[in-house]
């Protein structure tokens, strides 16, 4: 019998939820292990980097890499796995679009460090010690991977063949993704392995949305008792569904929560945030600057709302810090 194609999973800057998805495949994972051999999966099996180094180039059929890239180590591993793999798959919102970690691009490295190692209430660090890349101790030096100023998507670091969207991707999406990749005719490189259509398509509340809709004020889930039947936009909630790729079977809406956009945009849209912004702003009734402002004040954090998952992948990628001198 011929050797089974090798598959690898790796975890960069993310919460690990994507790894859960793999586990959530439940018994289905058996069918997969039938079909493939898991060659590298640090979270579950004891592999070290040298194992990967040892592998010949492109010997891994497909690597599913989850998480964004924000440290030297992650960048190195991304490059290494790229080199060793036939296909590199950005797995989940973080590697696809930057995901939640990408929101750190509203700050710079210094303030992130400060928050984590000084300011956060749970921290006791009187000495004000910060992580160092190199630490010398009688002749021997220890080194830590550098921490980047900017969080980047996987494809901002290495070429990516396919994308599996979602935070995390549903087991169903993953299963179909793996099947498509193993299957004969693969979609064009660069494809996102989910329906190329907005979420409303599969939203159970689709029919309850009226043809004309104007929004007097935007609400947040905690502001109201959310009706379980009617379209969330009509209830004044910011639902990213219209601008978000389908495939998740509207699981959040099933749970009576608005879509926050983890599926990313459709192939026809460059920037999900800009599009939902354009769409929602048009629904504001007023023609007066003051009134418009009043309505828009009900969206306290536009970037956090419209770019929750895709900030790192956006046109601007990060907040521009006036006159930042990037140390080289």
């Amino acid at each position: 019998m011929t050797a089974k194609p090798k598959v690898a999973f790796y975890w960069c800057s993310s919460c690990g939820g994507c790894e859960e998805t793999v586990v959530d495949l439940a018994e289905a994972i058996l069918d997969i292990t039938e079909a493939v051999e898991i060659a590298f999966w640090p979270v579950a099996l004891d592999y070290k980097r040298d194992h990967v180094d040892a592998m010949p180039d492109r010997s891994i059929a497909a690597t599913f890499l989850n998480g964004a890239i924000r440290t030297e180590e992650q960048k190195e591993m991304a490059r290494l796995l790229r080199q060793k793999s036939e296909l590199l798959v950005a797995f989940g919102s973080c590697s696809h679009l930057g995901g939640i970690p990408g929101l750190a691009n509203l700050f710079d490295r210094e303030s992130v460090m400060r928050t984590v190692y000084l300011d956060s209430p749970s921290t006791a660090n009187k000495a004000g010690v910060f992580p160092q890349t190199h630490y010398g101790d009688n002749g021997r030096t220890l080194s830590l991977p550098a921490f980047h100023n900017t969080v980047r998507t996987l494809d901002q670091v290495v070429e990516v063949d396919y994308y599996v969207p979602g935070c995390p991707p549903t087991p169903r999406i993953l299963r179909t993704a793996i099947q498509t990749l193993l299957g004969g005719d693969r979609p064009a490189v660069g494809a996102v392995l989910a329906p190329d259509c907005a979420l409303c398509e599969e939203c159970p509340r689709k029919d309850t949305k009226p043809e004309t809709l104007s929004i007097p004020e935007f609400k947040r889930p905690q502001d109201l008792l959310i009706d379980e039947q009617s379209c969330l936009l009509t209830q004044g909630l910011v639902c990213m569904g219209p601008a978000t790729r389908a495939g998740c079977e509207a699981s959040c809406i099933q749970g009576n929560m608005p879509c926050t956009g983890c599926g990313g945009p459709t192939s026809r849209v460059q920037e999900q945030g800009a599009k939902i912004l354009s769409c929602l702003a048009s629904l504001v009734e007023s023609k007066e600057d003051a009134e418009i402002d009043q309505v828009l004040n009900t969206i306290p954090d536009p970037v956090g709302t419209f770019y929750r998952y895709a900030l790192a992948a956006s046109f601007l990628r990060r907040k521009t810090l006036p006159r930042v001198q990037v140390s080289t």
Partner: protein
Amino acid sequence: MRNRQLIHAPEPHEAFEPRIVAFFCNWCTYLAADLAGTSRMKYAPNVRVIRLMCSGRVDPQFVLDAFAQGADGVLIGGCHPGDCHYQEGNYKALRRYHLLQRVLRQMGIEDDRFRLEWISAAEGDHVRSVINDMVEKVRALGPLQLNGMTEDALEEVAV
């Protein structure tokens, strides 16, 4: 992905000349710009006009892309409120402008770099004053540095 060439910040020795992209509606502001021409009014050469049928066609993506591609400022010109050739388009533009301005603010881009102006077909002089004024304001702000772009090129070291 879109070919995003790195933004070359202009060499220190060459004086900074703002680059501004303008989206003008076909019926009012573009005509006003033509009028400014036929009346031989003189204004700063820093603006590149892109003609759209209506300010309502301006997709926020265009504005963000322009900045990402190295524009130091973006100007939208439409018909005066109530005068839109398509009745309502300029109001849509107005609302999108306000929300987008908020996003840009959060992203650290100064208000003066993104403007929406109502300029009717008869207001050639207004085109001149708006452009001159914006060029000066943006010149004062200096070049827009999108670190998000430039850092790609650089290996970073830790804190």
